[in-house]
């Protein structure tokens, strides 16, 4: 058991986590750049905003988490709430 605990796994090294995140950031940047290079056919007005989907995705998720956190103050109860 003890030598199992000492075994280093992929994400135990902070360097690997950093590499993964950096790769991820690069892809994000490339996707925004691609928005200006690739022609996007649009049907709706707001789709014409540059990088609309990227902005929308980011804002939507932040909003989702912030609202969900607020929701906790109203709906959250103890784990055994219904067992009492």
């Amino acid at each position, binding site marked *: 058991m003890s030598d*199992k605990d000492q075994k280093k796994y992929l994400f135990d090294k902070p360097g690997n986590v950093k590499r993964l995140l950096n790769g991820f950031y690069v892809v994000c940047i490339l996707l925004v750049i691609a928005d200006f290079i690739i022609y996007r*056919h649009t049907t709706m007005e707001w789709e014409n905003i540059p990088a609309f*989907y990227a902005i929308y995705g980011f804002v939507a998720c932040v909003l989702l988490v*912030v609202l*969900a956190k607020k929701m906790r103050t109203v709906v*959250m109860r103890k784990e055994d709430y219904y067992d009492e």
Partner: protein
Amino acid sequence: MSELPPFVLYFISAFLVVASRGIVRKIILLATPVIAALHIGLNIDTGIISTYSILNYELTLMRTDKLSLLFAYLFCIASFISTIFALHVNDTKQEIAGLVYAGSALGAVFAGDLITLFIFWELLAISSVVFIWARGTERAIDAGMRYLIFQVMSGVFLLAGALVHYHATGSLAFNHIGLGSTAGWLIFIAFGIKSAFPFLHSWLTDGYPEASVTGTVFLSAFTTKVAVYSLARGFAGEEILVYIGVTMACFPIFYAVIENDLRKVLAYSLINQVGFMVTGIGIGTALALNGAVAHAFSDVIFKGLLFMSMGAVLYRVGHINGSNLGGLYKTMPKTTVLCIIGALSISAFPLFSGFVSKSMVMAALVKEEYNYLWLFMLFASAGVFHHAGIKIPYFAFFAHDSGLRPKEAPVNMLIAMGLAATLCIFIGSQPQYLYSLLPWEVNYWPYDATHVLTQLQLLFFSALAFVWLNKQCLYPPELHSTNLDADWIYRKFLPAGIHRGLIFFRKIKESAMTAAIAPMHSIRNSFSQSYIAKYHLSESWPTGSMVFWISLVLVAYLILDIFGSVL
């Protein structure tokens, strides 16, 4: 032979399972979906109608078209994968339930009339509750009971609707029903309960997380998808469904973000996915309806895959709370990869199954100019990725190291998950095969530069939001908690209300009694003191003698009456 309903094969197998043991039983369990799928593929064409007479009533056990065949294939695949996943379980009850449950789902999609549909509707309810009760805990037994009440109630609505429909139209055929009549609304509510409409959904989020490790995988595949099929047949194009669907797609994701039980997170995301299907059915164009049923097809497989991966964790670790998991990728790498494939599929990444099916519903929304609703659905799409695509794999397999070092999932589980994952990628990268099965004629291809680019932007920046929130420590931590949902109404509010009401009425009764008894006492006292009380007849007598005297008086009346008329 071509008219043998496929559910018969499943029901025969259920009997064979009872009579067999060990390896033979396992072979029967595995062979049933394969034989049923071969039977459907080779012998059953579109356009078959076969009836069976019982008590002067004709049940249409088989009515086949592309819509029912698509779901039939899906249910065979789902039951095959779930059976492999559950192969290590030696529990006769669950094995029989699995066969009856999948068989009933097949029976329901081939049902040509509402009574046949009702019979399978109730069989689905009764057989599926076994999976919840199989967990054996007190919580599971209570949750199973609540689940069963909802399911049976749905059946009661369906039967009532069917009878009213018959009274009004003289026909019980199950075709487009619409919302133009009382019967239509009754049946709509029945379908609504089973497809987990808002406020009618709590049986799902309450029951599914309490089911056994393998049971939830079965449950996630059939009940809601039979309901989606029924809605597509009975209520396509009813606009109210668009709004219901959008609500279903949006509200559960908030719960999914703060929920700790990861199987409950998946239950919420199941409602979210059904929301996309319901929206498609509500739009009602060929593209939207194809999108709805195609999404049902891919959802059964990727949602099954996600429930299987969480089931594997539950099986190895013993609980499935996000707050106490993490770092499992170290010892369960295969399950991790398979879970991520399911997560990518549900998030609709290009080359994975969700991408090719969900996009049809989104395209239909744009085409029919539901611009604002389209924004809500885009929000829901980003939200799915957030809670199901990232949260599930992240908190279970990565996040902080929980110190847990469970063994890799058993081989049968890995095979089942591997099959589902292969299908997810196959459907996603070769959608033409799924598209050729779709019921309506439509020309749609999901892979163009705009669509791929915009979807990738949406998803990567949703992920970026997750990374940023985590780095800023803004992401809500996983907490041991219960989050109030619609089931609070009947689990706390109504019981508490009834309890208070009973106490209130008891108090009223007591004060009324004291108020009424006091004058009665005084009347009795004054009566006993009066001189009439000394007569024999005014003593207090038993009821029996009173009855005797009354009947004597009545007999006297009778005799007088008879003789009076004779004279």
